[in-house]
């Protein structure tokens, strides 16, 4: 019994237990609510995008928080996952009529392709030290967006047709999968909340398994003191690459889920602003803090929607709230106050 308690609530695993129970609890409550009463449309429409952003924020936290490298191009990985998923889903529409199965295939494909791109850019770059990764990922995000902006991909009974920059794809009763700046159109909306939650749980499982493993400890050792880590034989670039590739693959997974939630998707969605937005979620929730990331992403995504009644002042208030909360959470006085309250609770619990 004590052993089970320790695996669940021991110092090392408490955060993991909280993460999983938080996500599962929220899922159960929302599912009950959706079946019991008619939820507002706004609420149901936010569920899947929130799941996507939670996954990609968790992925980014792995790089920024645990590996200590700055990535400014996670929207690019999302884009790769997204458009891969759209293509796979469109191509397999007739072969795999089952939506769930097709969603699974698309998400896996998005995950793999995005992970490969992550590997491609991290292998040379992570051999360097300093801020090079930030610069390269920044450029990478822009390049991916531009590339997809100029891609035309369609298929008909004669197979796949592809053209670059100018649209030379002419189809016989076929379907365009990617049409340049218009992106993907007519995508079947097959994403759903349950899949979103399952993917979050998978993400949490992967991240916790990684950071609690030998590899995780070397990743954090390399972050905390590169020279010390190297001196005891940690292969820095290899550990960082591992974290980065997993992060890229998870971001691609989020992108795939995201893309299949909308009937159209334009490449311009995944611009620099989106990368920064994800970074804001991570910083807001705390670097290396997984539960914080989940909560901050949910809050920051939902907040502007909840402020709609303020009309023109919406974005102003959003910005003010952002600044105030960032200040408050970093203020030592507030922290001391919070600590005193938690101490109070803890003492009561011990009595």
């Amino acid at each position, binding site marked *: 019994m004590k052993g089970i308690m320790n695996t669940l609530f021991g110092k090392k695993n408490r*955060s993991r237990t*909280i993460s999983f129970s*938080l996500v599962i609890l929220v899922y159960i409550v929302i599912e009950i609510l959706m079946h019991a009463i008619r939820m*507002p*449309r*706004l609420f*149901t*429409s*936010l569920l899947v*995008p929130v799941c996507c952003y939670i996954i990609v924020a968790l992925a980014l936290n792995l790089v920024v928080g645990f590996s200590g490298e700055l990535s400014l191009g996670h929207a690019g990985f999302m884009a790769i996952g997204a458009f891969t998923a759209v293509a796979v889903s469109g191509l397999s529409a007739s072969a795999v009529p089952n939506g769930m199965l097709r969603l699974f295939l698309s998400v896996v494909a998005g995950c793999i392709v995005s992970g490969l791109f992550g590997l491609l850019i991290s292998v040379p770059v992570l051999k360097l030290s300093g801020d090079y990764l930030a610069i390269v990922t920044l450029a990478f995000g*822009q390049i991916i*967006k*531009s590339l997809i*902006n*100029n891609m035309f991909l369609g298929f008909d009974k004669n197979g796949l047709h592809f053209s670059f920059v100018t*649209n030379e794809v002419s189809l016989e009763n076929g*379907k*365009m999968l990617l049409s*340049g*700046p*218009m992106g993907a*159109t*007519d995508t079947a*909306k097959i994403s759903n909340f349950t899949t979103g939650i399952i993917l979050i749980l998978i993400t949490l499982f992967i991240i916790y398994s990684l950071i609690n493993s030998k590899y995780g400890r070397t990743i954090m050792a390399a972050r905390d003191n590169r020279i010390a880590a190297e001196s005891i034989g940690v292969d820095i670039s290899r550990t960082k690459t591992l974290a980065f590739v997993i992060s890229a693959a998870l971001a691609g997974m989020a992108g795939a889920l995201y893309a299949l939630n*909308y*009937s*159209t*998707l*334009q*490449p*311009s*969605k995944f*611009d620099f602003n989106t990368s920064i937005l994800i970074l804001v979620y991570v910083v807001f929730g705390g670097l290396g803090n997984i*539960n*914080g990331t989940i*909560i901050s992403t*949910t*809050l920051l995504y*939902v*907040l502007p*929607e*909840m*402020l*709609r*009644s303020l*009309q*023109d002042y*919406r*974005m102003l208030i959003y910005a003010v709230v952002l600044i105030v909360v960032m200040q408050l959470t970093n203020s030592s006085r507030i922290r001391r106050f*919070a*600590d005193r*309250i*938690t101490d109070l*609770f*803890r003492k009561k*619990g011990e009595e």
Partner: protein
Amino acid sequence: MKKLLVVLLSILCVLSLAGCSNGGGNDGGNSGDDAPAADETVYVKLGGSGPLSGDAKVYGEAVRNAAQIAVDEINASDSHIKFEFNMADDEADGEKAVSAYSTLFDWGMQVSLFTVTSGSGAAVASYYDEDGIFAITPSGSATALVYTDEKNFPSNFQMCFTDPNQGVAAADYIAQGFADKAIAVIYKNDDVYSAGVYEKFNAEAAEKGLNLVYTGSFTNDSSTDFSTQLTAAKDAGADLVFLPIYYQPASIILKQAKDMDYAPTFFGVDGMDGILTLEGFDKSLAEGLYLITPFASDADDELTKNFVASYESRFGETPNQFAADAYDCVYAIHQALENIGYKAGYATNGLNEDLAKQFTTMTFNGLTGQNMTWAENGEVSKAPKAVIIENSVYVSVDQ
């Protein structure tokens, strides 16, 4: 333990915020339901979304302002059909457009101005179709708003020209008036609107045998310097430059062309409209600029004069074609509602089909054209007007 506290606090925050917004929504809802039944007056909930914050907010605000004018005019008139108007912010983004649509749906929207921009419209087109809400967009010009390759959205309509139609119209116009000129095109290739117009222009130009000597493109990230494209156009000997782009980058192109002593004929489409009202723009640069637009704010018919006067007095700006299209949308919806005999207790189910039937059979006279009709696929049919800017005003050119 500390973490648990944070969780609890955050949940409290979310709940209190949710409470706030729901309260606001209900207030709006009640005023509509409480419309007196004895009186014949009936309020129709008119929704719509557009960018009210961010880069593209000028367009969203123009639509909101003009629609508000039309709604106020109708509500002050003796017509028994009046509007409650709610415009939501979608930041010109597909993802936010879905949230904006959901907000409006929760509010109880019955008819809609759809979206202002094409990108967000394409994202919600299927939602309007699935929920059976009639929608007509003032300015979302991509065909994806009204039909896709696979299906037609029967109750989604457009007040503006579609991108392909504009591209074809521009190529035809140039083929008639400037057949012997060497033509350069500069377009924005990460923009649905610009790329859509360009693609059809290119196809039609090839068909008409136009002499295209140079095609240049730019993206959102490179829309502040056009010296490369202009130099290439000049070197290629182009004496007409076709600009299927919005007016902000166009204003920079005009400025840079003047600085390098390059003076071809510039030719724009409806996105060029508004260039004269751009803050800090030297209006002399736009002299001799051709554009195809459905609306000229200095037209001297009674309707235009009244609209421009009330827009200027309320918002301190000259309205552009986005505003004019929005104004027309509200009146067209109103006309259709009157034609179907809308009254209190009218079945909400099927309202979109009745309105769609009405739109495809009626003709409408508005700011942006006379005798407008709509095709089954939702596209409008009206005559494009070409104007030239002389002494900082639009002058119609008739060929």
